């Protein structure tokens, strides 16, 4: 008899996830029909290749290839970013064209542009996007700020969800002002007094907020249907998307969008204990975010973009005190739940390699941006699969020969013995298509393990 999910070890859970990926299903539970026997063979070979690269148990048949763009598939199709954000069908079509042209073993779907109209409905202030603060042809960009104030740690610690709903969300979504008027849900207890909790829902600002939520939800669903359809179609053509969702390092959660870069820096000096408490408090929430996403999508890979732990952003002591412990806990929690953490070392992380290599073997895959790949392989690479690290500058400004020479070096070093996936180091909007093609084609030819 098959073991129940809860009774499985982390190893068994991961294996079960890969087996599930090898027999993809339609949303109604039936087997996904492949468009040709060749497509089915390619799909399964790709999953097996990636599985072998990640698990570090055996050498794959060849170095797998992934391409992790942000807006490149859409600009390459002659669209503006604005068009990709507002025309979901064209967005999916452009992404399909991109996949069929460059044929990666693994992709992360067409979701990068996101649903423009959804952001409009909610009056999203955390980002500027095409037509809303940036030009139509440019990508959305974050507006740094202190969306949580220095004195609000106790509020966050007491009830993170209440803090998010009543303070953070109204600050980053213009249309969600009504949330400020809502009492905590935990006051809804018994007959006497229960009705008082519901009075705010009669107030016009609250009702306007809920109206916006309904509209935004409908728009998000409309977009998600197109994205889901796109993933299914690409899978049926032999191209798997195994991305399950995303979560964050607790330090980045607080540093990126709550306190902001300057805010969290001040907190490290002025109220380190509060910061540490908050990091601990949101760690299980970050684990739950990843596990929940994996459950929703059925895919095991949980992306974790790493920002403020890069080389010069923290001292070694600060990294070990504030950044790494809770990030490690998040990864261990995800692994325990059968997920594969997929952190991205954005920027330079050479000084952190010896610390971050302390993770369970064969359970994670890391996107490496500008860190030296040979050094990464010697440390982190002993325990983890590495993706990377063809640079944005090379893809954008180099020649196909530059790219091939660099890929050769990568395959010869980082690719040695497996545990390596060829790919770009940082998400990119612009590149010469012939360079992207060279990265993929050359790896498929030269990257075969003998």
């Amino acid at each position, binding site marked *: 008899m098959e073991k129940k999910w809860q009774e499985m070890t982390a190893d068994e859970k991961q294996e079960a996830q890969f087996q599930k990926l090898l027999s993809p299903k339609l949303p109604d539970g039936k087997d996904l029909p492949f468009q040709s026997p060749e497509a089915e063979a390619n799909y399964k070979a790709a999953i097996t290749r990636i599985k072998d690269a990640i698990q570090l148990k055996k050498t794959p048949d060849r170095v797998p290839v992934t391409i992790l763009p942000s807006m490149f598939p859409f600009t390459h199709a002659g669209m503006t970013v604005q068009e990709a954000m507002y025309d979901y069908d064209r967005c999916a079509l452009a992404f399909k064209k991109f996949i069929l042209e460059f044929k990666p073993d693994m992709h992360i779907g067409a979701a990068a542009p996101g649903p423009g109209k959804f952001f409009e409905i909610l009056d999203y202030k955390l980002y*500027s996007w095409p037509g809303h*603060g*940036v*030009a139509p042809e*440019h*990508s959305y*960009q974050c*507006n*740094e700020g202190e969306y949580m104030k220095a004195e609000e740690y106790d509020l966050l610690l007491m009830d993170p969800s209440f803090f998010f709903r009543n303070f953070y969300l109204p600050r980053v979504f213009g249309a969600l002002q009504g949330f400020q008027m809502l009492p905590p849900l935990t006051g809804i207890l018994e007959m006497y007094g229960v009705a008082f909790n519901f009075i705010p829902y009669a107030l016009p600002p609250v009702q306007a907020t809920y109206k916006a939520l309904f509209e935004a939800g409908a728009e998000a669903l409309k977009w998600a249907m197109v994205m889901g359809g796109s993933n299914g179609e690409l899978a049926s053509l032999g191209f798997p998307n195994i991305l399950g969702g995303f979560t964050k390092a607790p330090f980045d959660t607080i540093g990126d969008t709550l306190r902001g*870069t*300057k805010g969290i*820096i*001040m907190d*490290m*000096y*002025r109220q380190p204990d509060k910061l540490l408490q908050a990091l601990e408090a949101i760690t299980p929430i970050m684990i739950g975010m990843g596990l929940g996403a994996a459950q929703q999508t059925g895919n095991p890979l949980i992306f974790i973009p790493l920002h403020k732990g890069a080389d*010069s*952003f*923290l*001292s070694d002591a*600060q990294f070990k005190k504030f950044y790494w412990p809770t990030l490690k806990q998040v990864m261990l929690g995800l692994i325990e739940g059968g997920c594969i953490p997929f952190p991205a070392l*954005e*920027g330079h992380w050479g000084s952190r390699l010896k610390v971050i290599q302390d993770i369970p073997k064969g359970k994670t895959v890391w996107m490496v941006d500008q860190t030296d790949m040979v050094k990464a392989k010697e440390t982190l690479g002993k325990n983890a699969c590495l993706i990377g690290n063809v*640079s*944005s*500058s*090379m893809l*954008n*400004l*180099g020649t196909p020969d530059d790219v091939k020479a660099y890929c050769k070096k990568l395959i010869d070093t980082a690719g040695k013995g497996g545990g390596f996936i060829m790919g770009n180091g*940082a998400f*990119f*909007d*612009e*590149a010469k298509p012939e360079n992207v093609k060279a990265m993929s084609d050359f790896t498929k030819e030269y990257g075969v393990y003998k």
Partner: protein
Amino acid sequence: MAKDLVNTLADLKEKEALGIVQERLSAGEDPLRILDDARRGVEIVGKRFSDEEYFIPDLVYSGEILKQITDMVKPKLTKAAEVKRLGKVIVGTVAGDIHDIGKDIVVFMLDVNGFEVFDLGIDVPVQKFVDKIKETGSGVVGLSGFLTLAFQSMKDTVGAIEKAGLRNEVKIMIGGGQIDDQVRSFTGADAYGKDAMDAVKLAKGWIGG
């Protein structure tokens, strides 16, 4: 209590440093001397950053302490501070890019290291750089950018400076997350720096100090 503002600030002892400033102000000391000590303290912070003893948080924190000191001292200044400057530097995040953290740290370090800095902000149109060079006669321009779109914007900016006939009047440095020598060569800039202290070194190399 230590009375040495320079070292107290360099060691990032915020409360102590502010305490010393308060005492010295109460004792009627020349506010300009206090400011100069504070600036020297932050200069040490920059040196420690170059030596990899300090990191970005230390730079940002020292900036915050310096800002508080400046706010305390300002009301006591009888005339505008006339600090001798090494030279003028124009800094901005190029068109299309709205990232400012890296750029702000560069501006701050150039400033405390004795340069007069003209911060043009983010998403700066090429013409604004050209106009500012003409207006200030600045000898160094720093272009910041975090996204790949910045490569082209930097090239366009350098091109516009050239077209305006000013290319030989200025040295241009670039910096940001994805910037390397290949990008430098593409944009036609004179140099690139990996961090704020590189920017200070480049500027000092070009206009002395």
